[in-house]
């Protein structure tokens, strides 16, 4: 049981982090590079999950994507499975909840790429793609990597959102943090200790590895 919950937490954290990098990078780049109508609004929406209680995100997720909602029915019709109380639902909710942890480091990293680097690439005849993949992305890579690790570590420790959206179903939507809560509720302190210590070590190592790799990347540049 412990292994199932831990494995699910890992799967959820890894999928959330990877999908957020893919989906969040265009958003981070757009926020960093362009000033468009609604820019401030978009930035506020991206930042909102940082201050919003997880239960609020979970509640509105149930309201707008639950089985009785129009969007929920559409999703169920398209994918053949409901969003609430499933891994897909957990993934979507985790992506929303961890959005600022992935997007903000990437946005800051793209903002930090000096304008004259882009100018130099343009004058040398680079296409937009060549400029992005050969110059901007490698220079912003420490920030992208930081977004990946932060989203992973943050999702690993989620509680409120996964409880609301997943329903704490053992073997299906019960993550390690929910299982710790269950152990504490049933006075099984030893099991809670074991799992909590494991999450603590994994989270600490993730951050440490991120810092080591970031430092090496900066020295390389």
């Amino acid at each position, binding site marked *: 049981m412990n292994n199932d919950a831990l494995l699910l937490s890992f799967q959820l954290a890894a999928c959330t982090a990877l999908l957020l990098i893919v989906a969040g990078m265009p958003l981070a780049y757009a926020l960093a590079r362009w000033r468009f109508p609604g820019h401030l609004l978009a930035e506020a929406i991206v930042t909102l999950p940082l201050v919003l209680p997880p239960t609020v995100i979970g509640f509105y997720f149930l309201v707008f994507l639950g089985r009785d909602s129009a969007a929920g029915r559409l999703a169920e019709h398209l994918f053949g499975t409901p969003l609430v109380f499933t891994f897909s639902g957990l993934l979507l909710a985790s992506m929303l909840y961890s959005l600022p942890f992935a997007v903000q480091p990437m946005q800051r990293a793209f903002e930090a790429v000096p304008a*004259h*680097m882009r*100018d*130099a*690439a343009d*004058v040398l*005849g*680079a296409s937009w793609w060549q400029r992005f993949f050969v110059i901007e992305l490698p*220079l912003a890579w420490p920030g992208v990597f930081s977004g990946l690790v932060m989203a992973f570590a943050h999702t690993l420790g989620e509680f409120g959102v996964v409880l609301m959206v997943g329903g704490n179903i053992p073997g299906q939507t019960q993550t390690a943090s929910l299982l710790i809560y269950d152990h504490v509720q049933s006075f099984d302190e030893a099991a809670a200790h074991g799992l909590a210590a494991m999450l603590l070590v994994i989270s600490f190592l993730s951050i440490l590895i991120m810092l080591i790799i970031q430092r090496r990347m900066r020295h*390389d540049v």
Partner: protein
Amino acid sequence: MFDISLTFSRGDFTLQAALQLRAGGLHVLFGPSGSGKTTLLRLLAGLENKAVGHIHAPDGRNWLKMPSRLRPVGLMFQQHALFPHLSVRHNIAFGLRGKTENERVAMLLEAISLSHRAHCRPGSLSGGECQRVALARALAPAPQLLLLDEPFSSLDEQAARELQQLLKTLQQQDGFTVLMVTHNKSEAYRLADSVWLLEAGKVSGGGEPDHMLMGQRLSGRFQAEAEVCHVESDGLMARLEVRMEKRRFSLLVDESWRLQHGIEAGSRVLLTAKASDFSVFPVS
């Protein structure tokens, strides 16, 4: 001939420039800070795109209608702007496409005497070496017009002279036109075929360096004989230690010039300077 006529506005600042640059020449854009020199270079490179007017090139095309990446223009930035994560070789090759890429890079690396550092990153190079790589990178796609934004301002005197000599040599080889921004009057005087003055966003005129830079202030010429006491040479530049009456001082000259005129220790040389280069102070 490059026939340039541009008007550009941003906020309160308006730039109006009309220049005629002889193809194959080295032209200097001279003016105080904030006069719009860098903006004019950016307009010519296509990095600002709200200008009206024309840039008629010798090839008959109006470059103003072309996007930046299609203009045959090279731009060398004040702070080299080399890509820090790419090697020297890859920096130079960035603007090249096609089968002759390797040969062109090898030729340029040899020209800037950095073949042995082809695989180094810019962070491990000196300021002078970085500027040489930046020059090679700008020249790699064989531009018709090379724009230089104060390329020598961050270098010491010797490194600046070496880079200027390299620029002259490459220009004689490839025949490209140079438009260079500088604050340094003696640099402009020494290098330029023509000088264009830019003041408060307006090109106020252009012409021979003598006429444009000295004007009415040229009121005389100082000259004196001195004896060369000692010569040191690194093959490219020579440092002459000269004695004039009881004073000794060093001068940096091109080695080829020294050899051509047989200047050795014991030779006598004539030192000249424009009177406008002197300042006068009362002796207390």
